[in-house]
């Protein structure tokens, strides 16, 4: 296996007396998907914020390509190529596809004072990029993002991060608000991003989605890593039980499925 792109060693984070993370160690490798599983309140959001530079860890260290790093602000993390795509806040609905794609990094043409947003270029590139990930329903870069489905927006946000050279993609529940078809679309895109060499952290509480694309798995419970395993080492039932903290979750789920 290649060297890890980013590694957390014994990272803890507390807010006053509240311990959000305790002694978390994990490694994310280029070209691999690390699934971070955990129930609500397990510390997933805090872990994302530590990884993307919003929170410095209270203890422990972060290694980027083997070297110890401290992010004083999210911008530093972004500069290294750490991109976070959130479930709902990635795009701006009443703005065009092209402008969304290049927000914050607008291509320009012409000379000052006539330097202007190059909407032709922006629209063309944005469409090319999302087409490459299989979205063909959007034909016009001027179309408002609000007209796209949740899955398409997610793809736009991930495609955008990849286009701008993201090396570590942190995907926060990218599939949880989506229907089955849309979710599989986004999962497929993740495998494409993996094939392109990105290191991916996939945060989810959906064990099925995680097991369909994941290479490495970590289960977070009450801010601690409760289990760590690789693809094929555990069954879905075992994973569900782990996430629920040992309760016989799988049985319960099967029971519920039986009711339908």
């Amino acid at each position, binding site marked *: 296996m290649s060297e890890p792109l980013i590694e957390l060693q014994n990272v803890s984070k507390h807010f006053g007396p509240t311990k959000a993370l305790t002694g978390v160690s994990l490694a994310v490798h280029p070209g691999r998907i690390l699934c971070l599983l955990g129930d609500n309140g397990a510390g997933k959001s805090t872990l994302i914020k530590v990884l993307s530079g919003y929170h410095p860890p209270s203890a422990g260290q972060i290694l980027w390509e083997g070297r110890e790093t401290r992010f004083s602000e999210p*911008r530093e993390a*972004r500069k290294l190529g750490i991109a*976070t795509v*959130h479930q709902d*806040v*990635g*795009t*701006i*609905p*009443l*703005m065009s596809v092209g*402008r969304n794609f*290049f*927000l*914050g*990094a*607008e291509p*320009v043409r012409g000379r000052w004072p006539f*330097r*202007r*947003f190059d909407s032709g270029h922006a629209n063309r590139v944005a469409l090319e990029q999302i087409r490459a990930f299989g979205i063909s*329903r959007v034909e016009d870069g*001027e*179309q*408002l993002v*609000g*007209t796209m489905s949740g899955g398409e927006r997610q793809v736009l946000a991930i495609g955008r991060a990849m286009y701008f050279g993201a090396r570590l993609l942190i995907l926060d529940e990218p599939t949880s608000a989506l229907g089955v078809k849309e979710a599989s679309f986004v999962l497929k895109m993740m495998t494409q991003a993996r094939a392109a060499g990105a290191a991916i952290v996939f945060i989810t509480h959906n064990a099925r989605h995680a097991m369909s694309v994941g290479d490495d798995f970590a289960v977070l419970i009450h801010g601690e890593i409760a289990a760590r395993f690789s693809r094929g080492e555990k069954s879905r039932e075992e994973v569900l039980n782990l996430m629920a903290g040992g309760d016989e979750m799988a049985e319960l789920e099967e029971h519920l499925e039986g009711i339908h």
Partner: protein
Amino acid sequence: MRKLIRRPEIGAVAAFLVTYLFFVVMTSGAGFVSADGTAGWLNLAAELGIVAVPVGLLMISGEFDLSIGSTVGMASMILALGTRYFGLPDWSMILLALVAGGGVGLANGLAVVRTGLPSFIVTLAANFIVIGGTMGVSRLIANVTSSSVAVSDPVKWLFAARWDQANIAILWWAAVALVGWWVLSKSPFGSWIYATGGNATAARGAGVPVDRVKIRLFISTGVAAAFVGVIQAVQWNSGNATYGMGYVFQAPIVVVIGGVLLTGGYGTVVGVVFGTALFGVISTGIFYTGWNTDWVQLFLGALLGVAVFANTQIRRLALQGR
């Protein structure tokens, strides 16, 4: 058709055309469509329009500015007292008025981004502070709250030249609209304005300096209001602390009629221009019909209600546009 419905200004353009034709028919023979009649409504729209364009941009970024009214009056008093009472050169007083307007905007902007309070309240407070301050200071200095101005001919020409009935303010309005259109639709900063109003968290995540965007826009509304204050002072040859108070709500009204979303993130300068023109047509059109001009307010109120409703529908259609 889908492309057309995506334009936020479509409602304002349609409303303008309908209203204009309505008054053309109702006032036939009374001179509403003559050169003088046209100049009349353009004059009225122009001064409001100079403020409405930056206010529109600010509202697209998700913020209000209700302090523009008193900033107009403040700027007119700075020019009046400076030139008449202290006998200072008119150009430096104009510059001082514009800087003071920008200062009010800067203060508004800083207060809004630092405290996180709604700009509606912050700038409403600023509106009273500025008019009260202007009156108080004017009283202290010269024991007046209005004063005549003393300006040179070039200044008179630049701010108050007149061809038949048409004021030079119409050209200033056109220039401001052109700059506003360029900034919003063509420059990268325009994307930042839309993103700031559309989803500030996502904008910040993409590296847009949201706070700086807002502060810059607050400064631009302040400077624009001061500019109108200078125009009015020169035009009417006097400054008055109460100038511009009508704009406090007229500006946001024409902006919303122009298709800008009250919560930000959506709208165009073309829409704001047509919204302002509509205001001019109604205000002067009523006069030409011979009806009592008291009806103007009723018209405007009804129009605002219809505009908000229609724009909501149009936006829904735009978001369906598949």
